């Protein structure tokens, strides 16, 4: 079978499973008794193994198989969760991730056997349990393989269902009262499209003459189509087995149903593998006397208890479909074009009314309607492109765990707001800068455990990542309760390294000093890093975030910690902008960065250090004449009042002097392409209603 067309799906799903494994293994490490975690892990490992097998990735399959064996042993209580075991399992997970990455790049799994890890895993499997468990493991393993190779091998998979005590009791009581207990495995034709519906009909058919006690997978999973083309179940029925079988087979698209009647002894024979996992949930049922006649309702109650328990451990799966990002891009482009066309009509309609005189004409009304529709459409499309930042931050807990071991510091990562949504392209890019910041906090921000105790801080350092939406921006704060930035140490380093003269450096504000840390030339210096505790790759962080249209600032207090505040735009493609004219050329300035527009008499302009400033409500604001920056002649008379667009970046304000204001407009951002190198003042271009191209001024780059 050619499986290449499934490669994309395989990669997506494999990554999901790896993420689940990573998350749940972290939980398991903290709470070795967490059965939900181990079950989740087991399921993910099992699916991964199955997928790898289908795709023919033998090495990946082997490694996941051994991992699965370990989890299986943990689940059945034969193996204890130790830090050593978890280390090996995490290593194995890394190797699996390595395989998947290789597959992504070359569509082949490579030839790294990872023998050492496999051997380690085997050692744990053999070493931990001693003689008895090895035997048990041997018996568990074939069962495991059966599950994978059922089509050709033993079809009676219901034998693999692990029954807990209460389920057994219910069934035994039923047998005593003269009912029949059957185990069934039902196979659905592989061409069947609605297997969940077929399974439902099978359940219904059985329940006409009895009750389904337990099924594998669970009825919830079957309902969600989370099963292969077969499922197994135990049922208590009045009718004889042939009748049930024919009832099952009467459901269309059922290929085969295998089953047998169970006696009390048969139920007992499988008891050694009774699972402890449901014990807590089952107790009330077990303790209550179960009269024979009420067996079925009791079983149902038991099931509902088990089900009620589930939502707590299992995240609610959102209803999603996978859509190729290119399709979304196409949709986005179409909306962009629509908006351009709309702008054309708006300008045509406006000029029409001017010549036509007073009175509202139907064209204008409809144009306004069109405007509101396109705005809503734009918002809807933007929302489609939005994904939670979760996918970017969910690898961090694992990373911090590793850092904890590597740096030998106790630390704890708290993440809030991981459901905050951002444009997919931003989420894809934001992972690395955030990772840098967290590493920075772990490595340089947090003090050593000894120092922390000395300073009376909690022994375990805290690193936090908080994300939230703030107007048209998403803010992600990454920080720690560590040492903070020692501004004076940085200042002396600046002088020492000749980065600035002593005089200049001493005049620099704390903020300016901290900003130097983001400078590429500066942060390269190792010495500074050691003393200041900051600097590694901060320039990269800054440039990455700025290339996404965002910015980053730092708040720090010596001895108490630092917080990096990353601010990102919600959308990249379409923004509200103020259109201005400078020297006869049209430019757009993002409305986000504009605070006010001021009419400034020439006499109000003062000179401070040869730079023009104005006073605005008590604040001194530098003014920037855009005509100079853009290399054009201003068309305005020197003595006329200036039009200043006041823009802000963080806490800093500046006034951009323009010739004329055109008004506010929704614009579609287009890239200038990779061939033109401009000095970042121009962040892009947009097409106006009349087809003319106007450039977008990046106010952030000017401040």
């Amino acid at each position, binding site marked *: 079978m050619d499986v290449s067309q499934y490669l994309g799906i395989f990669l997506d799903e494999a990554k999901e499973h790896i993420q689940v494994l990573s998350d749940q293994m972290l939980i398991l490490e903290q709470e070795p008794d967490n059965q939900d975690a181990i079950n989740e892990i087991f399921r993910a490992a099992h699916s991964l193994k199955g997928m790898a097998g289908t795709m023919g990735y033998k090495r990946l399959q082997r490694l996941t198989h051994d991992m699965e064996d370990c989890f299986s042993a943990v689940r059945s209580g034969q193996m204890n969760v130790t830090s050593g075991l978890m280390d090996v399992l995490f290593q194995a997970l890394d190797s699996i991730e390595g395989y998947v990455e290789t597959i992504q790049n070359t569509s082949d799994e490579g030839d790294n056997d990872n023998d050492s890890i496999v051997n380690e895993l085997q050692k744990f499997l053999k070493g931990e349990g001693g003689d008895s468990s090895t035997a048990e493991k041997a018996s568990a393993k074939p069962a495991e393989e059966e599950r994978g190779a059922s089509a050709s091998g033993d079809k009676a998979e219901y034998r693999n269902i692990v029954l807990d005590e209460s389920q057994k009791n219910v069934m035994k009581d039923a047998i005593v009262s003269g009912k029949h207990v059957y185990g069934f495995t039902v196979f659905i034709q592989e061409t069947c499209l609605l297997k969940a519906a077929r399974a439902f009909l099978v359940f219904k058919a059985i329940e006409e003459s009895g009750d389904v006690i337990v099924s594998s997978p669970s009825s919830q999973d079957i309902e969600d189509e989370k099963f292969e083309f077969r499922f197994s179940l135990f049922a208590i029925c009045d009718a004889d087995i042939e009748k049930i079988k024919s009832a099952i087979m009467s459901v269309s698209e059922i290929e085969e149903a295998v089953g047998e009647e169970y006696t009390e002894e048969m139920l007992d024979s499988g008891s050694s593998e009774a699972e402890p996992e449901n014990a807590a949930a089952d107790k009330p049922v077990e303790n209550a006397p179960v009269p024979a006649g009420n067996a079925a309702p009791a079983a149902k109650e038991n099931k509902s208890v088990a089900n009620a328990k589930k939502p707590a451990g299992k995240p609610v799966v959102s209803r999603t479909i996978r859509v190729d990002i290119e399709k979304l891009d196409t949709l986005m482009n179409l909306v962009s074009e629509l908006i351009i066309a709309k702008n054309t009509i708006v300008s045509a309609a406006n000029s029409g009314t001017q010549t036509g005189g007073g009175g509202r004409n139907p064209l204008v009304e409809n144009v306004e309607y069109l405007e509101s529709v396109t705005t809503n459409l734009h918002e809807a499309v933007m929302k489609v492109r939005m994904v939670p930042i979760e996918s970017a931050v969910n690898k961090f807990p694992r990373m911090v765990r590793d850092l904890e071991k590597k740096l030998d510091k106790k630390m704890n990562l708290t993440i809030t707001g991981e459901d905050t949504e951002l444009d997919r392209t931003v989420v894809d890019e934001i992972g690395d800068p955030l990772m840098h910041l967290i590493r920075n906090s772990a490595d340089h921000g947090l003090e050593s455990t000894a120092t922390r105790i000395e300073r009376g801080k909690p022994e375990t350092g805290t690193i936090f990542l908080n994300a939230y939406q703030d107007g048209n921006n998403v803010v992600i704060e990454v920080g720690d309760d560590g040492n903070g930035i020692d501004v004076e140490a940085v200042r002396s380093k600046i002088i020492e390294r000749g980065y600035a003269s002593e005089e200049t450096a001493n005049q620099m504000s704390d903020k300016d000093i901290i900003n130097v840390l983001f400078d590429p030339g500066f942060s390269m210096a190792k010495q500074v890093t050691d003393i200041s505790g900051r600097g590694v790759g901060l320039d990269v962080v800054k440039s990455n975030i700025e290339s996404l249209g965002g910015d980053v600032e730092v708040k720090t207090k010596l001895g108490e910690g630092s917080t990096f505040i990353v601010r990102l735009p919600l959308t990249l493609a379409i923004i509200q902008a103020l259109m201005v004219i400078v020297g006869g050329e049209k430019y757009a300035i993002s409305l986000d960065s504009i605070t006010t527009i001021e009419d400034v008499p020439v006499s109000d302009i003062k000179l401070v250090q040869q730079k023009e400033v104005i006073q605005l409500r008590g604040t001194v604001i530098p003014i920037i004449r855009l005509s100079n920056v853009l290399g054009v002649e201003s068309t305005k008379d020197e003595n006329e009042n200036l039009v200043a667009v006041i823009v802000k970046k963080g806490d800093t304000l500046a006034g951009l002097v323009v010739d004329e204001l055109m008004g506010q407009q929704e614009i579609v951002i287009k890239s200038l392409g990779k061939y033109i190198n401009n000095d970042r003042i*121009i962040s892009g271009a947009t097409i106006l209603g009349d087809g*003319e191209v106007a450039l977008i001024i990046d106010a952030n780059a000017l401040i």
Partner: protein
Amino acid sequence: MQELEVYEEDKVTQYIVVNLGIEHYGIDIKYVDNIVRVPQITRVPNVQSFFKGVINLRGEVIPVMSLRLKFDMPETEFTSKTRIIIIKVDPSAAIGVIVDEVEEVRDLPESMVEKKTPDKNDPSQFYITGVGKTDKGLVSILDLATVIGEKEIG
């Protein structure tokens, strides 16, 4: 290096022959996306001098460069014959080059093109990979990837 393969097989390649002043240049047709008249060009401040700005080509913003300025030739006024050749070396990024005139589309068999090493010292010869002989005279074959800066000179 697709050109090299072409040479070896002695295949016929189609070129758009454009004029700058009295000189003829050949552009491999496989890179040409479109040929358009000069629309309104929006100047982009503070960029390389040979970039005239950006244009709107059916809703896409595309940078345009003057081939004359790139080759250190004197700039001339646009005429009714001036054209912009829209080039796509990288399928996801278009760029326009302004030429004085588009002359014709011409098939040139390999045997009629003399290979040439680009001369790094003469700006008008930086980008020439060969000279084709036609009945109307010589046509300098342009190495487009280098012209638009997709790859380094050499």
